[in-house]
């Protein structure tokens, strides 16, 4: 397991230009009876499946290579990893830690996984826009 790269080998910081975070949901099943009354059954005490979409706009090939190598180093969607501090730069410490961990306790019980293959859009010679989608899962 390798953490998401904080910077390239030459020290170029890898910061997203856009990020979309969706909170995880709690494991609950709902049964609604004919009378309209709903029964909610909880199956766990922690949320799961927070998602994070990151966009790295107009980055050079060095950053593209770093993300490309990280994706393959994780076996695609196979292995989980921790995110770097640069992903959530600009946030205050408490929410920063929660979002970085992907859970409200900000503990090490969760890991991030690639949800799908990264998408690379060639913008100009030597410049690309990379979009990656991540999902947070329990580390067991």
């Amino acid at each position, binding site marked *: 397991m390798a953490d998401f790269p904080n910077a390239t080998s030459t020290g170029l910081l890898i910061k997203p230009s856009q990020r979309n975070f969706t909170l995880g949901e709690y494991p609950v099943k709902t049964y609604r009876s004919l009378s309209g009354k*709903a*029964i909610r*059954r*909880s*199956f766990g*005490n922690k949320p799961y499946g927070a998602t994070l979409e990151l966009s790295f706009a107009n980055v050079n090939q060095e950053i593209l290579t770093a993300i490309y190598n990280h994706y393959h180093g994780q076996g695609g969607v196979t292995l989980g990893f921790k995110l770097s501090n640069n992903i959530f730069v600009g946030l205050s410490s408490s929410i920063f830690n929660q979002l970085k961990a992907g859970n409200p306790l900000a503990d090490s019980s969760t890991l991030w996984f690639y949800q799908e293959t990264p998408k690379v859009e060639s913008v100009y010679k030597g410049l690309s826009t990379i979009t990656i989608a991540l999902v947070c899962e329990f580390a067991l």
Partner: protein
Amino acid sequence: MSYNIAIVQYFELLTISNNPDTAKNLIGFNQLDTITIGDEPNTVYHRYQNFFVNETKKFPVGDPSTKSEDYAFAPFRAEGTVNNLGGDNSLFSVLFPTNELVLRLVEQGNSNRLSRLKLTTVWLNANFEPISGKAYEEYYVGIGAAFSETTVELRFRSAMDSVGSKFPARTFTRGLVGLLPLNSNVSLQ
């Protein structure tokens, strides 16, 4: 209008190993005191719960005021049962995703044929604390396991045997029957 239910299920699985060293090795492997040596030779208790993710919780064993044991988290699902009129042979299964933990459980109990399961279901309040008086215990014995590429199913049947028809037959005696008629005239009163 809605109603919320939170239920934790935890089990204590007693496995019996043919190899006396296996039990000792398991104790050393486990850091959470959720695997402990059983009372009988070559037996090991495995204790797991399925609600508190990545947490080890204490739950009472028997009388709550006397003793409690640690239960580690395991992502299992318990499902069953099929009952017949006699009440025996209820089928029950515990489903696990395939991982190191469940493979150890299967191997320890000789493919889950030499194991005994005590499953407890407890209702939790809004703070996820056990509600007293809302716990149900079930006992099962292992009958095998089924595997697929992603899941392992531990199969059990109920430990209870029904009252069968093979008791010594009751025989009529003079004391039970009373005076027998001497002819075919029967007077109905």
